[in-house]
């Protein structure tokens, strides 16, 4: 499968979703305002701004990172439903690192160190998770849910111990680089491309795919299936942690109240890679799409289109359902969820 082919395959789904949202958007516009085409054009310009694109990218970044991680784990046969939890741990560890390095006024350097540290910490936590899943054959759905509960519990708990509040004081957000873009957006683009190449063009990628589809075949080819799975699961946790850390680096402080600042992005990450049919580029495109839909909603509000924000917020979800039912066929690797034990 070539890159071009790949994009073509996903184009149908993504194109549909885009067209769908544009249609809904224009319908809302047309219904709400009985306006001349000129005014409509002005409104459209106010909606599709450069900032809209930037924010969509920024919104998509943590989701795409988590999605890439989850995709690798699942491709290799392990459903990491704990992405949300790992994102929470990532965001929290980044905040804590930044705070310990630079107090309430950390430097840009501290931001980068914090992101790195958070990725490592989350990866280490995932090692435990991976051992439970692979060595001790934990039920993947339950254990993943548990990670979410653990994130929701222990991140705010530790925050309260450190800061006396579940939310951190204000720290520092990452400075933008070229074109007002966050460096993490660019980093994510690289990660997405690299993970595509890795998955489809390197031997390790072959092994990952085989581990999820037919672990026995991989085993008899002399490759240790569980080693592959350890690698992908730990990678998935690290990526989710990175996603959480990036979220924090964009926001500049940790919020641990309610569903925490991660607020469902990990779940959307899972949906994104399923939607992208387990393809890194598809997953990133889906993440971008969700980000764009979300931001479109914000733009609507800003230009004063009086659709209930609450209802418009539901649009991406509805769109996912429509597209999935119309095109179905998200093909799950066939051994997902089954622990692999090589004979003896």
């Amino acid at each position, binding site marked *: 499968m070539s890159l071009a082919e790949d994009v073509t395959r996903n184009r149908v789904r993504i194109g549909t979703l885009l067209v769908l949202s544009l249609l809904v958007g224009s319908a809302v516009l047309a219904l709400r305002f009985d306006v001349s085409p000129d005014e409509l054009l002005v409104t459209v310009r106010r909606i599709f701004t450069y900032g809209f694109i930037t924010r969509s990218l920024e919104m998509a970044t943590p989701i795409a990172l988590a999605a890439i991680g989850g995709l690798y784990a699942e491709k290799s046969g392990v459903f990491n439903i704990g992405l949300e939890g790992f994102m929470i741990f990532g965001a929290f560890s980044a905040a804590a690192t930044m705070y310990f390095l630079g107090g309430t006024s950390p430097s840009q350097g501290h931001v980068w160190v914090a992101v790195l540290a958070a990725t490592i910490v989350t990866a280490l936590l995932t090692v435990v998770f991976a051992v439970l899943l692979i060595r001790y054959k934990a039920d993947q759905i339950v254990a993943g849910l548990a990670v979410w509960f653990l994130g929701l519990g222990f991140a705010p708990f530790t925050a309260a111990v450190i800061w006396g509040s579940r939310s951190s004081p204000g720290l520092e957000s990452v400075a933008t680089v070229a074109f007002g873009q966050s460096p993490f957006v660019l980093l994510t683009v690289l990660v997405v491309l690299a993970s595509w*190449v890795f998955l489809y*063009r*390197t*031997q390790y990628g*072959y*092994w990952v*795919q*085989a581990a999820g*589809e*037919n672990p*026995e*075949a*991989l*085993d*008899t*080819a*002399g*490759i240790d299936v569980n080693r592959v799975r350890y690698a992908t699961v730990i990678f998935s946790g690290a990526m989710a942690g990175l996603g959480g850390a990036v979220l924090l680096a964009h926001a500049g402080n940790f919020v641990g109240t309610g569903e925490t600042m991660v607020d469902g992005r990990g779940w959307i990450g899972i949906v994104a890679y399923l939607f992208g049919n387990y393809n890194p580029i598809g997953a990133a495109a889906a993440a971008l799409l969700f980000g764009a839909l979300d931001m479109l909603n914000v733009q609507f509000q800003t230009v004063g289109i009086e659709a209930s924000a609450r209802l418009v917020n539901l649009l991406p979800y509805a769109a996912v359902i429509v597209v999935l039912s119309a095109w179905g066929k998200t*093909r799950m690797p*066939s051994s997902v969820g089954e622990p692999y034990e*090589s*004979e*003896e």
Partner: protein
Amino acid sequence: MTRDSTPPAVHLEGITKRFGDVVANDDVDLTVSQGSIHALLGENGSGKTTLMSVLYGLYDQNEGTIHVDGKPRTFESPKDAMEAGVGMIHQHFQLVKPMTVLQNVVLGHEPTENGLVDEAAAREEIEAICSRYDFDVDRHLDSPVEELDLGIQQRVEIVKSLYRGAEVLILDEPTAVLTPQEVESLIDVMTDLRDDGRSLIFITHKLDEALSVADEITVLRDGEAVGTVPADEATEQDLARMMVGREVVFDRLSRETSTGDSVLEVEELRMRSDRGRESVHGVDLTVREGEILGIAGVQGNGQSELVEGITGLRSVEDGAVRLRGTEITGMSRRDRIEAGIAYIPEDRQTEGLVQDYTLVRNALLGNQTVEPYADDGILDWSAVRRHAEEIIEEFDVQPPNPDTDAASLSGGNQQKFIVGREIGHDPEVMIASHPTRGVDIGSIEFIHNRLIELRDEGLAIVVVSSKLEEIRKLADRIAVMYEGEFIDIVDPEAVTEEEIGLLMAGQSLEETSDGETDRGVQA
């Protein structure tokens, strides 16, 4: 002890392998000479696969030694075995379905350049192997494996082993899933490989195959090696005796045909396959009380779809199915079961049994609406249990414990259980698809005898099989299916196996004068 200068390719000595209390291999010796084909025969559960798994490094033997090429070896994993030049082609292919042929072949041994898989190098090497043995695999290098026929998938497996440098190739029941044509070309491949100096171990249940292709034959029984004989000195009778420990009769069973009313009629049936192609083009058939209609044909000529059309598992495009004169074309599967269509499915593992149900629970499968097991949707488990016990007893299912899981039964025993259950429906008509595929000789005989008995009691039976010998033995009439039509109906007494084989290959027996070839024959 041979004092040959070349050591044997494989020499196993005193191999014992236990699974808990089960002794799968008991002090087995096996010697395979260089450049030979060595057949391994034995009933289901006699320990063939286990022995080969030990050789391939999948299992650690409890006792015994392995010598490959004269050198003692211990294999921790298949990787070690492969390094020593031992390759194995499993009964269930070890292929990653959505990956391409090329990716499958190189999996685990990918040539790389700059960290990326070097596809061009891989392609070149595979093409070299293919041209050496005249394989057509290289035509499909970029297709996902799942899109290929089983025969090609198997050759992909062979190429995979060769690519990894296998000098000794183990083939576990390679012919079980193949059409006669494919079997033939596999045998060509095997002899080519042997002539090229490689050694092959060939597991099969088919005595004729073993006799025709192998140089030597070893027979296992209950985990022990009963003996090894040169193929050109053995007969089918000898081998069968060694396998089961008693005489086995191969003659056609006598038949006093007295057919009654027509039970099942199919008229102008048209069906589509999963891929959307029309795969049954207007088939007509009639089955009467007290007869067995055999449907022969190379797999993939529409038999499966035809059977599914009759049993209600696939919807019909056009045409009619009638049971005792009543049209049932639009009836659901469940209604057809209730109307008396019993079905021994093609795939006992995934269709005929729920693997992790006990036999008791499996005895209900298909009987969910049948009294006394169910009454108004409420189940009577004690009645079901009695039913399971009856089946186990009457069909000699081993182990005779209704609370064991279906998964832990051997193939033959699973099949016997299914046959027993389907007969228990007291059906109007029995459709049996490949009723003895992969089943050991003892069980085959048993199942055949039961089918004949039922026929004699007046049941109408359809047997679909690609085993000619089975069809000839059972059928009162043989309909040969070719490309979605019945190419001919023949009397089993009047034709030879070779003639049926020709029909299956699409050649009519007498080059008929009118040259009418596009019209099917009515069975």
